[in-house]
């Protein structure tokens, strides 16, 4: 194939950025770039473990609910007078527990991850509402919120701290996925789970680990979200799971598992973020933005299949033409 899908998404991202710089006032300002990337920080953070999950042929729809639960817990415990330094590990632990429940139901009870996480999507959001009700906790000190807000950047750059953190974690995730045995196991599980099992890969344990990691990242994203907006609420991040999965699929990770690169997933996340920023700057209505994202997603799922079908047909025709 001439152009790999993830490279194509990367190229499209560059094209969109260049188009934005050329056409839209204010797009290229450091302030706007800092904002545009920070605006998708939580989605980007969750997209990392989600990429690993989807490569392994699994999916977790409960991530945004876990973000909400993380946020609600942060708020409730802060309101109860806990130290922030204590709240963080407790919230992360809640993420691990949520991930363990997802993973346990998938690996031990043997339910499909889609069904399990549709259930826990409701469960975790419900728990978040129990923890905080419909209140918002907002009296977090500036020392913490400044760490995540859109206007505090790493000196000398337009990168905010959540984005910097994302970059570090993305590099680690890329190494795990593409340069370790564990990464190869994920592709193997995603491609052919049974074969992977008989090849000696500890399928269940790896899957459990993946769900736990996803839960952990989601809860952490809940803390980042809370600080960024200075507002802990049970309904924070409502609907984010779709944005995360859309970005990952857009980046060329095959929903059936076994295919994709982390580069593609990251390019997918950034593309959705930059597009959203650019469309908003040009006063494009929200509905249109949703349609654009939807079309991109459909294209990303369809195009590789269409290409594969075309290639297949050409091969067959070439074979038929042979004497």
């Amino acid at each position, binding site marked *: 194939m001439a152009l790999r899908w993830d490279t194509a998404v990367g190229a499209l991202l560059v094209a969109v950025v260049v188009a934005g710089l050329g056409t839209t*006032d*204010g*797009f290229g*300002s450091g*302030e*706007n770039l800092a*904002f545009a990337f920070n*605006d998708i920080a939580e989605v980007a953070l969750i997209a990392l473990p989600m990429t690993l999950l989807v490569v392994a042929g699994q999916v977790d729809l409960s991530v945004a609910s876990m973000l909400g639960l993380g946020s609600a817990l942060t708020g409730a415990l*802060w*309101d109860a*007078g*806990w*130290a*922030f*330094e*204590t709240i963080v*590990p*407790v919230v*992360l*632990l809640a993420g*691990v*527990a949520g991930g*363990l429940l997802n993973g*346990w139901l998938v690996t*031990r009870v043997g339910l499909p991850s889609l069904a399990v996480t549709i259930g826990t999507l409701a469960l975790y959001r419900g728990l978040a509402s129990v923890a905080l009700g419909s209140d*918002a906790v*907002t*009296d*977090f*000190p*500036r*020392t913490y*919120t400044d760490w995540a*807000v*859109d*206007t505090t950047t790493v000196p000398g750059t337009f990168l905010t701290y959540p984005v910097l953190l994302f970059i570090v974690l993305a590099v680690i995730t890329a190494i795990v996925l593409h340069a370790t045995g564990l990464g190869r196991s994920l592709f193997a599980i995603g491609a052919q789970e049974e074969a992977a099992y008989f090849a000696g890969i*500890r399928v*269940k*344990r790896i899957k*459990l*680990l993946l769900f*736990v990691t996803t839960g952990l990242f989601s809860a952490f994203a809940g803390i980042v*979200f809370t600080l960024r*907006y*200075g*507002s802990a*609420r049970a*309904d*924070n*991040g*409502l*609907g984010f799971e779709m944005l995360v999965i859309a970005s990952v699929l857009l980046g060329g990770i095959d929903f059936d598992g076994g295919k994709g690169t982390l580069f593609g997933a990251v390019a997918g996340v950034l593309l959705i973020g930059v597009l*959203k*920023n650019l469309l*908003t*700057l040009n*006063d494009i*209505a*929200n509905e249109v933005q*949703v349609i654009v994202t939807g079309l991109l997603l459909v294209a990303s799922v369809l195009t590789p299949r269409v290409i594969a079908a075309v290639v297949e047909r050409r091969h067959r025709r070439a074979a038929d033409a042979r004497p």
Partner: protein
Amino acid sequence: MMLRNAAGRRAVATAATALSLALALSACSGTTKDSSDKESTKAGATAKADPGAALKKGLKLAFLPKQINNPYEKIVDDAGIEAAKEYGGTGKEVGPSDASASSQVSYINTLIQQRQDAILVAANDPNAVCGPLKQAMKKNIKVVAYDSDTAKECRQLFINQASSEEIGRSLVQHLGEQIGYQGRIAILSATQNATNQNTWIEFMKDELKLPKYKDMKLVKVAYGDDADQKSFQQTQGLMQAYPDLKGIISPTTVGIAAAARYLSDSSYKGKVVLNGLGTPNQMRKYVKDDTVEQFSLWNPEELGYLGSYAAAALASGQITGAQGEKFKAGKLGEYTIGKDGEVILGKPTVFDKKNIDTFDF
């Protein structure tokens, strides 16, 4: 089951370790709610007001409603955009399609990049929008909250629909006139802990203490939880418990519509006076079939109109948002800024058979 294998055991062990670590940490000192510094910076009070300044031409205003396509907010914003034309400015409405806490934030950033002169915001969350709004004010973009306030330090003005006192007292006054200041009355509220509802009810009770209401007796405050079905049942319950009830005040749009629905189908229709806060579209048919004679709500068009002029006055330097400053809001006349930058639109509008068809929201 789960613990019988190594992975499960290890996971639980890790969890237990982390938990004990967390508990140990909590014993140490850290930043808690009580120890954290509470700062409040008063923004916008630095500039000097020039009451004589003319409204600038070509001002760019942006309305950011709680959510786009909300019919009520559309009326407010359209009226504000129309008002901008009167003083030679332009207005637009942008916003998210969902009313979640964070969804307005990216729009504020955009409006900053677009160098608008003023942002008018009906905040979904008083604090989530604070960071970018402060950023906007730093860049000399004026910020006016309307309909739903932000934290005080994140905007220069708040355009309030009506004062709580005005709403509470006027509802009792209206009902008093309707029933000839005689008989037993009840209140159908939303939830037991709704702040705005309870404030209104306090003022209602206070108004009822006046001598002219000596023959009016409040017998019960019922709570319909702003759920249609529950409000309907509560109305039913009120009529069963107090068959001689003369009037009901329902200061909630859900409650009043549900109560009207019950009354319109019951033998109490025309005998029990229902008043309260409602929207014309919800209440139209009950006004037309004589179940309800009148109800109130603020006029959303005037809210948008006032907000638009207030933003223009700020952007033109006529006012800075300090208490006591005055500005002219076109056909609505002169307004004075109250405590904490609050501007009150005025008395609620009373809707009845005569005027209800001129409103659509």
